[in-house]
């Protein structure tokens, strides 16, 4: 089985988000990490590799510095790394990014593509499903559990209050949630081996069946009006009750939502 995992190097938002005066992210002022949803996707791929045997290729688009995140993935157990980097690809929105990644993937053989649900720097959750559209393969988003069944995958797709079980024939694309699993640590020896590994570097010329008009800043239809830090969905409900009443109240709410 051949699995491709799409990963992204993102600013670590744990220490707070820093913006430039023009509203864009001040990436230089923030430490970088592997996007958490992507890391869960990679872990899912590595578990499939452990269980069924697979070749795991990680791919990323970014500045030459993004090579680091590929080496981290290899130190965790990925077999190959591909960096797609080119000046003409800069300033890409989700559309241009998914076009770029799809153009790179067209050069590769695969049974399964796994992406993170969304990146913590943009939170759009669009790139994964868009890649599947460009490649003409099925997508199952928000995966909280993945199993292989012959030439198909069986995936639990998470919803706010339930999950769906879906089956799809491979090749297909899955978008993973960070809750999917607890990603493994690298190993010290794996890190040193990862820095000896060859990283394949591709530019514009290596992208297959993609129009220039769909790439980079020029190929990005998105206009950013304003950027802000993530806001919570709601304040939630606050109640003041004694212990016994609280338990009853919580239980009634859980029943109401069919959790129990």
């Amino acid at each position, binding site marked *: 089985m051949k699995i491709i995992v799409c990963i992204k190097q993102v600013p670590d938002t744990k220490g707070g988000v820093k913006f430039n005066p023009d509203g864009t992210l001040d990436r230089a002022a923030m430490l970088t990490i592997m996007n958490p949803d992507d890391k869960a996707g990679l872990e899912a791929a590595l578990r499939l590799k452990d269980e069924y045997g697979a070749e795991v290729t990680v791919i990323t688009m970014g500045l030459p510095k993004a090579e680091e995140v590929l080496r981290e993935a290899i130190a965790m157990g990925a077999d190959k790394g591909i960096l797609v980097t080119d000046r003409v690809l800069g300033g890409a929105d989700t559309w241009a990014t998914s076009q770029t990644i799809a153009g790179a993937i067209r050069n590769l053989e695969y049974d399964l593509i796994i992406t993170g649900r969304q990146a913590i720097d943009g939170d759009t959750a669009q790139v994964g499903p868009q890649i599947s559209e460009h490649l003409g393969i099925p997508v199952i988003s928000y995966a909280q559990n993945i199993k292989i069944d012959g030439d198909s995958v069986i995936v639990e797709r998470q919803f706010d209050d339930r999950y769906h079980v879906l089956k799809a024939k491979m090749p297909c694309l899955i978008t993973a949630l960070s809750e999917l699993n607890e990603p493994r640590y690298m190993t*010290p020896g794996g890190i*040193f081996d990862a*820095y000896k590994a060859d990283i394949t570097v591709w530019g514009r010329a290596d992208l297959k069946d993609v129009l220039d008009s769909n790439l980079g800043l020029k190929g990005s239809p998105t206009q950013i009006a304003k950027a802000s830090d993530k806001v919570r969905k709601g304040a939630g409900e606050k109640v003041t009750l004694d212990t016994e009443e609280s338990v009853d109240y919580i239980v009634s709410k859980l029943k109401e939502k069919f959790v129990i």
Partner: protein
Amino acid sequence: MDFTLSKEHEMARSLFKEFAEKEVKPLAQEVDETETFPRVTVDKMAKLGFFGIPIPKEYGGQGCDVLTYAMCVEELSKVCGTTGVIVSAHTSLCCDPILTFGTEEQKQKYLPALAKGEKLGAFGLTEPGAGTDAQGQQTKAVLDGDEYILNGSKCFITNGKEADVYVIFAVTGTVEKRGRKMKEISAFIVEKGTPGFSFGTKEKKMGIRGSSTYELIFTDCRIPKENLLGKLGQGFKIAMHTLDGGRIGIASQALGIAEGALETTIEYVKERKQFGRAISAFQNTQFQLADMATKCQAAQLLVYKAAMAKSTQKVYSVEAAMAKLYAAETAMEVTTKAVQLHGGYGYTREYDVERMMRDAKITEIYEGTSEVQRMVISANLLK
């Protein structure tokens, strides 16, 4: 001269740091309070190869350099001195002498399980009457057919009851050196479970309280002749060589404890308010922090230099002695200042700096006291 770490080392540090924060720190207080060996953490570290960092891959290790190993002990010790010394004693005091002095058969037999952390290692040199003076050994090994018979006891043994493989020193005869009769000391590999090998009292310690520190007792303990490590009579040389490496591990532990105390204190002084403002606004606090940070940095440079020296030089006794001496004294000074800056809270067991100050003290004592380090350093100056 370049003081920047390679990208590999930076990534390795981030791994150790993340592991220490997520897996070790949450247990540190309980491990200390209950004097419990952190077996769960040890098993997790084993899976990640932390017990075989500088062991070559051909023996099941990670094949990294000594600096990577030192950084591992440093990062673990930032949050838990106990966890740091478990890795240090195992790697430097048990794996290293087998790797350096073992026969190919011994390396093949013992190193893979040790490097993978399936077995834990320990080192038995110290006896009630033989601490700094290793010549005071009383434990004897007598050859009887194809076996050596061990009799005697060892004390203050780190990883004592939890280990599986022990490098043990014993007197095998007498030799004449410069007209004086001296004890001939040899080293042996002893496995847990060997008949006649038992455990005595568990030490109740001031610090590193989760570390399993035990007395080892040998009563007519028969071990195969092929478990002699190195040549007969080479024991003193093996012990001294091993301790040179061990000192880099303990120096890393001391460095980590100091840095951990500094980091904790920086957070605290920004929050603690007195006279209407954070105590970080007072110049005394600022000057204390500046001194603490400068000493930590100096200790780190000495420790990393010694670690590099072990990877590249044949002899590194002085580098190791300087690193251990300075890092240990820095750990004691920095943790003492950290407690002082925490005031009354720092004296309570609720706050990490109290534990750190107790953990720091042992680094000035074990694997060669600070006085022994000064002897090693000055002997080299005056030779």
